[in-house]
Each structure stands twice: as structure tokens, then as C-alpha cells.
């Protein structure tokens, strides 16, 4: 009898003790929650609300006028153009890089892995300067470009290049750990069943990585539309020509056009909220897989 009861109670004891260890006193719990909530309110919700409040401070009509003025529309167009070019390119690049890193053995693989993170580790301003140094009037290729009358810096191509550079890690970073964890047995199985390389990717790899891929694309898009630092260096701030939405916010603000600045900002804020919602959905999808 004894031998049966002793381990039983001790097991119960440890369960109870574990619960205690995980449960801090009430006041600690509540104050931690309050601090976290306060932080989020102060630094995230409040600014977001303020953006919308300021944008609408002179009424909905003023907001609409600000949104539809030529410069703002041009900024929206440029921002969309940048996203439309950079996001697909970086998606393609991300998949290629992830594939190469997780499926092949080659020299310099770890170097490539590190290199992918480079845009995350340098300041965006420096990323912008790299392109000025390369393609600016005084840059390495400046003279060459001038002879053919090609403009990169202070025009859309420069903005696109800078954005490409800044956003290229997003997709690859999402895919590499997932594809590493997945291994390639399923792909080998598909190949052994006679599937071509493309078919294998399309019908075996892609379905397994699609949520992570979408997640990466989403983050890449958010950054491509919202990038300020790198773009600011290469854009030249030419109204109606080389201002993206984030730059337009700054230009309007510096002109004391508060409604104009916040109208542009409200679009970016809206984008942020949409991104956040989609991101949550995707995370939930990924977790339920």
C-alpha cells in the first residue's frame, strides 16, 4: 500500500508547486499587464489615432482635397510602382536564394546566408548612399550613365533599386528556416515518381511553403511602401516626380501643410493596419498547418 501512495502524493505535490512557480502574485501580474498595455497605447495606438485625427482635423473635405492633390496622387502612383516592381523581384529572389541555400552544397554558402542579412544590419541611409556612390553624377558609373543620358539617381529607377536592396531579405528570411526544417525528402519522392523539377517545386514545395511565402511577401510589401531612409537619399525630393508617400509626408509637413502630411500618413497607417491584420491571419494559418 505504502509504496503505492507515496509516489502518488509526491507527483501531485510537484504539479501544485509548478503552478505556483508559474503564477506570480496578483499585483505583479496586473502591473505587468498594465505596463504592457500602457506602452502599446502610448507608442502605437495613440500615434495611429493622432494621425487620423490630424488628417481629419479640418474636416473630411479638406482631407479629400489633400489626398487628391496632384503631388499626393503622384506620390501614391510612385509608391505603387515601386512596390509592383520590387515585391515580385524580391519574391523571386527570396525563393531562389532559399532554394540554393537549403538544397545545394556549395562553397561560400554561409557567406551568402550572411550576405542576405546585410540590408537588415546596415542603416537604410547608408544603403541609399551606396547607390549614390555608384550611380550619382560623381559616382563610379556616373559619367557612363550621363553619356547615354540615363538617370538613376533622383529618379524612379534609383528609388526602385534602393527599395530592392532594403527589402530583399524579407522573403528569403521567412523561407530558409522553414525549408531547412522540411528537408527535401518529399521533393526527392516527387522526382523519383517522375515529376520534373518545376512540377516538383510547383506541386510539392510550394504548397508546403505558401503561408510563409505570403508572410514574407506581405512584410516585403509593407517595407517597400513605407521605406524612408534609403529612398530619401536617392530621391532628391522632386515634387510630383520622385516623392513616394513617406517622402510626401515629410515634404508636406515641412511646408506646414498639416492636413496634407497627415492625409498621406493616414494611407500608410491604413496600410500598416491591413498588413497587421493579414499578418495575424497568416500566422494563424501557419500555426494551424
Amino acid at each position, binding site marked *: 500500500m505504502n509504496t503505492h501512495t507515496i509516489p502518488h502524493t509526491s507527483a501531485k505535490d510537484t504539479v501544485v508547486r509548478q503552478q505556483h512557480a508559474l503564477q506570480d502574485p496578483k499585483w505583479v501580474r496586473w502591473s505587468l499587464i498594465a505596463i504592457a498595455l500602457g506602452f502599446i497605447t502610448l507608442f502605437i495606438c495613440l500615434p495611429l489615432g493622432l494621425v487620423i485625427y490630424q488628417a481629419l482635423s479640418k474636416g473630411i473635405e479638406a482631407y479629400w482635397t489633400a489626398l487628391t492633390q496632384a503631388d499626393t496622387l503622384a506620390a501614391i502612383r510612385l509608391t505603387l510602382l515601386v512596390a509592383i516592381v520590387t515585391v515580385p523581384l524580391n519574391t523571386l529572389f527570396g525563393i531562389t536564394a532559399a532554394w540554393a541555400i537549403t538544397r545545394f552544397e556549395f562553397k561560400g554558402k554561409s557567406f551568402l546566408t550572411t550576405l542576405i542579412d546585410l540590408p537588415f544590419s546596415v542603416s537604410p541611409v547608408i544603403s541609399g548612399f551606396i547607390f549614390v556612390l555608384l550611380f550619382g553624377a560623381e559616382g563610379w558609373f556616373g559619367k557612363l550613365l550621363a553619356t547615354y543620358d540615363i538617370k538613376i539617381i533622383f529618379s524612379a529607377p534609383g528609388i526602385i533599386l534602393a527599395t530592392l536592396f532594403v527589402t530583399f531579405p524579407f522573403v528569403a528570411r521567412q523561407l530558409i528556416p522553414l525549408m531547412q526544417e522540411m528537408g527535401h525528402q*518529399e521533393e*526527392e*519522392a*516527387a*522526382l*523519383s515518381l*517522375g515529376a*520534373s523539377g518545376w512540377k516538383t517545386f510547383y*506541386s510539392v514545395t510550394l504548397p*508546403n511553403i505558401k503561408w510563409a511565402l505570403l508572410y514574407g511577401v506581405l512584410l516585403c510589401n509593407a517595407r517597400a511602401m513605407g521605406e524612408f531612409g534609403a529612398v530619401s537619399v536617392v530621391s532628391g525630393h522632386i515634387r510630383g516626380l520622385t516623392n513616394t508617400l513617406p517622402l510626401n509626408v515629410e515634404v508636406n509637413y515641412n511646408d506646414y501643410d498639416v492636413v496634407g502630411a497627415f492625409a498621406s500618413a493616414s494611407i500608410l497607417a491604413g496600410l500598416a493596419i491591413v498588413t497587421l491584420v493579414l499578418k495575424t491571419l497568416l500566422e494563424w494559418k501557419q500555426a494551424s498547418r
Partner: protein
Amino acid sequence: MSIILSDISKNFGSFAALHNINLEVPEGELVALLGPSGCGKTTLLRIIAGLEHTDQGSVIINGENKTSQNVSQRGIGFVFQHYALFRHMTVFENVAFGLRVKPRHTRPSNEIIKKKVHALLDLVQLDWLHDRYPDQLSGGQRQRIALARALAVEPSVLLLDEPFGALDASVRKDLRLWLRNLHHDLNVTSIFVTHDQEEAMEVASQVVVLNHGHIEQQGSPSEIYDNPTNAFVSRFIGQTNVFDLDEHDNEWLRNVGIINANSTGRIAHVRPHDILIEKSESHQDATATLKDWQHLGALIRLELVKNDHHASKSLFAEMPKEQFKALALKIGDVVKLKIRHAHWFH
């Protein structure tokens, strides 16, 4: 179809995983590739399938040199150790995959695919699971689906990497027999990898023993068991007692009959069932003492200690249960040994 491997070598960096493998598998045979962990079984199988390139040598299937052919063109069924089922497809779609990816002009119609997949699922007795996903199956079920998937493309050769490796003992036993019967019905040339000698002996018609990347012996299960060509094979296939002449009292070895007229070599291997045991009348002629014994189903395994001046490891002998009962032995009893057969190695 027949498989011929000639002079295959494979290195991973400076590590030689396989060297100079020569192997012939006649058509319709079920061959076991047997060897300890890390000896290169999977590597050899992957080379046959085309999932790995050789450094040297050629793979010839049905008279055709396939060495440089791509895996997707070789027409080989491969069953992976961990099944590698497509996790986002149902069982049905998994099995249908090989048919659906065929080039348009050879691709069967949906009707035929459907019929064929259900027939295959019937063959592995799992048609009732056709709309499940792989993670809703048990290990044994996944194994059988993986097999059905590989069979769907009517491969010329079937390769199985430790097909029962991840299953528990009773499921393994069932599936072994099932695989043998299936092979009997389909008669497709098959190679399966295992590191379980019992499994190899039970399922295969031919056994290839691999060690450190080269073939130690190839033959039928009984050939390998009865005539191991070297000490490694003898020790790897079944239990064996090892007697090194330098470490044993030769007088004792002569008494029990290991050393006799046709002894050659320096090391003798004796199977447990080749040790005959009689109850000893006097301590004078006693050659061993019973230390312990265990049930092995119908057999009893006796652990014996030699009665000589060299205190050494225990010996193991086996005998039918009835015989053990008739002898009425107790632990500590002295016995007389007679060894009727030994394998000699240098």
C-alpha cells in the same frame, strides 16, 4: 528487371562511403542490403535510384546503362525510410501523384487514374483511408501508402530504405510477411535496406552484407548463415561464440571438440545451437558451469562459464525447451560440453 552495379565508389569529401561495389541482382529477386549503421546502405540505394551521383562505376538496369540518367527518368520506385508522403495531399492524391505528373501523351485519363489508385489502395488494404491526410495515419499505414505510391508508376525496380525501421516489433513482423507475399505476387525486382539480420533472413531471397562501404558477402540466407566467409559476417548474422586460440586454454578447446582434425585458422566461431550439453557425472570431466538461463520462446538460452584456468566471458548455448526440462539443470550445476561445429577464421 535485373540490376547490375559495377565498380561503384562514392566519397563524401575525404570520407569513402562506398568503394568498388560489384553487385548483380537477377530479375524478380527480393534482395536485402544488410549492414551496421553508417556502412553505406542508404547511399548505395540512393545511387541506384539516381538520387546521388557516383564518383566511379556504373548502374545498369535491364541492360541499360543508367549511370548518368536523371532520377525522374529512371522509372524506379523508392520508398523512403521516413515515408516522405506529401503532407498536403490526401492518401488518394499521394498515390495518384506519379500518374498525374506523367507527360501529357502518356498520362492516363482521370477515370483510369481513379481506378488504378483504388486498386493499389486495395492491394495495400487501405482503400478505406483514401481521403485522409498522412498525419492522420499510423506509421504502418503510412508505410503501406508510401509503397502504394511507389508502385503506382509501375517501376521496373523497387527500392525500400528500412521499410519497417520506424515501426514497433509486432507491426514489423506482420509487414515483413506481407511484403514477402506482395513481392511474390508482383514479382518486381526489389532491394530493401535493413540493419536487422532477422528481418533480412526472413524476407529476402538474397542477402548482401555490407560493411564500411564494401560488400562482405552475398548469398541466400542459409548460405550466409551456414557458410559465413569471414568473421564479420559470422558475427553479424545471428549469435556466435568467439574463441581466439591465443586467449584460450587449448586443452579445454580440445576437450570440448572445437579443435579437431579439420581445424584451420586461429579464431573459431561457434553458433549457440552447435553446443551440445550433457549433465556431468563428476567434476573431473565437467567443462562448464551453468550461470544463468533465459526463455527465448521455444528455445532456452544457457549462459555458461568455462571451467578452466582462463577466467573469461560467458558462452551462450541454445536448446529446445523440452530438452532443457529433461536435463533438469539448475543454476550452478556443472555440465559437459560437446561442440559439433565451428567456423574457422584467420
